[in-house]
């Protein structure tokens, strides 16, 4: 089965159809996605803030809740229109940027080149937001 066919099947799942075919499904899940991003973005910012570099460990639980909410709502949004997202170049760019963010986080050591990793993280996150907005256009 090709990726295209897989997306077609995902789109036809009960959960996907219940979002795409209801009046409020997509707007509500979309709003929760943005709300979770806004509310929990501080947990991703904190390791880059002066004097709070070591605080990331203290907030790992809030961060996990936030990431789970964002990924869950994001997956539902994708599933509701999987074929459309499959065709969107901007969505592919967004996924690639998220992969780079994970890579950047994994390679960030505790002390060395911290500022470089922070700068890369900021640029990548900003790019993710631009790419997310771009999905509506291409």
């Amino acid at each position, binding site marked *: 089965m090709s990726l295209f066919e897989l997306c077609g099947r995902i789109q036809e799942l009960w959960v996907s159809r219940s979002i795409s075919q209801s009046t409020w499904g997509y707007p509500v899940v979309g709003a929760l996605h943005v709300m979770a991003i806004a509310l929990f973005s501080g947990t991703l910012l904190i390791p880059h803030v002066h004097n709070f570099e070591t605080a990331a460990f203290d907030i790992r639980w809030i961060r996990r809740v936030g990431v789970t909410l964002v990924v869950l709502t994001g997956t539902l949004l994708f599933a509701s229109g999987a074929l459309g997202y499959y065709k969107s170049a901007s969505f592919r760019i967004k996924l690639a940027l998220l992969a780079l963010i994970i890579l950047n986080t994994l390679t960030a050591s505790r002390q060395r080149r911290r500022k470089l990793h922070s700068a890369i993280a900021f640029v990548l996150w900003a790019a993710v*937001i631009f790419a997310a907005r771009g999905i509506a256009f291409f």
Partner: protein
Amino acid sequence: MAEFIKQSWLFPVIQSIHLIGLTLLVGTIGLTDFRILGIGMRRHTVGDLASGLAPWTTGGLLTVFATGPLLFGSDFPRYLHNPAFVLKMGLIAAALTAHFTLHRGAVGANARRNPAKQKLIAVVSLILWSCVVLAGRAIADFDLRGA
């Protein structure tokens, strides 16, 4: 200028910058509220956290206030007829008023004398800012363009 923003690629670009500002603003306030509620960052005091994050909060606030009016100005009659936009403006007024009065007190040095009140303010702050984001997102759902 308004017409140019409305018709060109500039609109989604300004919208994206608006969103970046929003995540900084709400993300930093949210983190402080979580700390007040005793969730995370317990090695730092509420005051330390709030003052450490203050430049980021201010940066976010300035960004949304620089970009928001540009988006509004690009097609203001459309926004004025949008119930989600009108609601968002009311919520922003409430959230900002609460932020610069109640919330400022709740992160201040004297706040620990009344932890119940401090926590109530954190919950109100979280609810208000969440509603601002939800109403902002809903603007697109109540947009009458094309209707």
